[in-house]
């Protein structure tokens, strides 16, 4: 029978191997495990305790693809994300986006309302889908908003309004028509929605 030392060594070894699998740099194969780098910020269960980070599990594949491409090419700005997006070979961006989109949207972080859209959020439905879970539009893929993190939503809406985020002209003009308090109300409403 193995003594505790042997067991400890084996356990440590297994954990180390596991850790390596989940943190090694982008390889040609095993894109799925490469994506584990994303979860260390976006949450290992799909939602980070840092609510300024967006939920990406279950987000639309086309939307994810556009954001990754924009991070690479400068359409959207974030130092960490531009490094991370640059590290995925361009030919694999589509596959990576698809894998992320097929993961389950995580349970809500806040109490949810199930019926009817609050006033402000109704306007979003025209592009983001009747239940605000995302849709295709003439102006490109619109992301899911329902159940997204409130702090992230507020930050992005503010960024559109101030020009800090400039990868969607329609969003810029819509957000400029709201004041700061309205944007925060809207973020709160959207975060509490569960379709």
């Amino acid at each position, binding site marked *: 029978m193995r003594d505790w030392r042997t067991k400890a060594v084996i356990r440590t070894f297994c954990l180390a191997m596991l850790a*390596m699998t989940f*943190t090694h740099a982008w390889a040609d194969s095993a894109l799925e495990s490469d994506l584990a780098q994303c979860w*260390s910020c976006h949450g290992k269960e799909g939602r980070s*305790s*840092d609510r300024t980070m967006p939920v990406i599990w279950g987000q639309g594949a086309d939307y994810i693809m556009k954001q990754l491409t924009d991070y690479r*090419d400068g359409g959207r*700005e974030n130092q*960490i994300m531009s*490094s991370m997006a640059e590290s995925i070979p361009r030919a694999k961006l589509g596959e990576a986006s698809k894998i992320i989109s097929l993961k389950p949207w995580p349970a809500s972080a806040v109490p949810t309302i199930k019926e009817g859209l609050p006033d402000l959020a109704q306007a979003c439905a025209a592009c983001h889908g009747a239940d605000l879970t995302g849709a295709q539009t003439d102006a490109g893929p619109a992301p899911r908003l329902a159940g997204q993190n409130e702090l992230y939503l507020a930050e992005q809406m503010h960024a559109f309004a*101030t020009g800090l985020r400039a990868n969607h002209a329609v969003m810029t003009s819509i957000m400029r028509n709201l004041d700061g308090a309205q944007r925060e109300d809207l973020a709160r409403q959207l975060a509490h929605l569960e379709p």
Partner: protein
Amino acid sequence: MDKKIFFMSVAAAAFYAPSLMAAEMLTGSTAFGDWRTDAPGVTRKITATDVAAPLATPSTANRSKVVPQPEGAKLLTMEGFSVAPFATDLPGARVLRLAPNGDIFLSQSRPDGKLSVLRPSKDGSKAEQTSVFADGLKDPYGIAFYPPGPNPTWVYVAMQGKVVRYPYKAGDLKATGPAQTIVDDLIVGPSHWTRDVVFSEDGKTMYVAVGSGSNVATETLGPRPADMAAFEASHAVGATWGKEEWRANVLTYTPEGKEKKIFATGIRNCSGMAVQPGTGTLFCATNERDLLGDNTPPDYVTSVKKGGFYGWPWFYIGAHQDDRPESGPRPDLKDKVIVPDVLMQPHSAPLGLAFNTGSMFPASMRGDAFVALHGSWNRSLHTGYKIVRMTFKNNVPTGEYQDFVTGFTAGDENVWGRPVSVTFTKDGSMLFSEDGNGTVYRVSAKTASK
């Protein structure tokens, strides 16, 4: 002395001496590490031969979460100094620069870009007045007064895309006239967005730092220039092209924004510059590349030589080759890479530096530079998030750096401050900004130096 006790003492001394020495100066592999080994006074020296192989450890994304100052958490500094908030509630606090009359200028880059003036109280301990000098700016960062000396007539501000200047006279708390655009051809996006500006001591040269447009140019270069010799003649040796043209450089212009030239190449992201008083030597605080593991490659602060090539994207820290740039290797540049003066723990993210020329700090610290480390995201355990002191001998960096203010890390996930910029005030105390919670802190010596 009893023989037995004597031998025990010798044995104890032999046993303890190495660890005591290690506590004073960490070198080689022991110099690398995370926040848990930080403490005021701990000194490190990293050399080019200490650099770990790429991916000797996995590359890990580990963004810090900024939290308010936790109950009981406090900043630590060296014996004989104290540190306390100077001004709070300054979102996006980035670059600090001292105006000759003693006012402190601060750029607040994001989310609402503006330039603020902090006026110290009589005893220097607090900002007793805060005024918005200019607002509505996009990513304002570097600040410089011109001409150098006691009576500048302009304050220059660098941002993505351009350098502008406002009319200025000593004591102004608001711009008295509109901005004039002096340089309008700086690159906008992608990736590194900070732009710093400083003047040479004689006021004839304006240095502008522009970081790279990517981590390591995996697809921003495009095809090589057909005639590399001609390209380098019109730019500089080691210059990058394609979307990286005029990036990862320190550029120079006249104060009127004319005669654009590349002063140095291969500097991935010189986030902060300072001119060494007396010698006029330019220094850069530089962030090296990501995704090569916990301890590769070191970030650095270095004197910058005119025409010097510092490696990016093809090399780092001397002739360590990086195979990721899409252009393929550049063996022709291998012998031209300058090894930077002071190598710092990889991923520390040095952003700003300032030289201590005042008389408040001890004489032994005069002429030293103090550097703000913004802190890591690409490391399994956080590192940086502190102010360090770079020591000099005969105006030349010793290669050593010492923890000066630590304590912003709260466990493995949270931090409550992200240092950005350092400046010395008229009374000789040091201010540093941090953009996590938007605070400017003051470090003062408890007793006047001899």
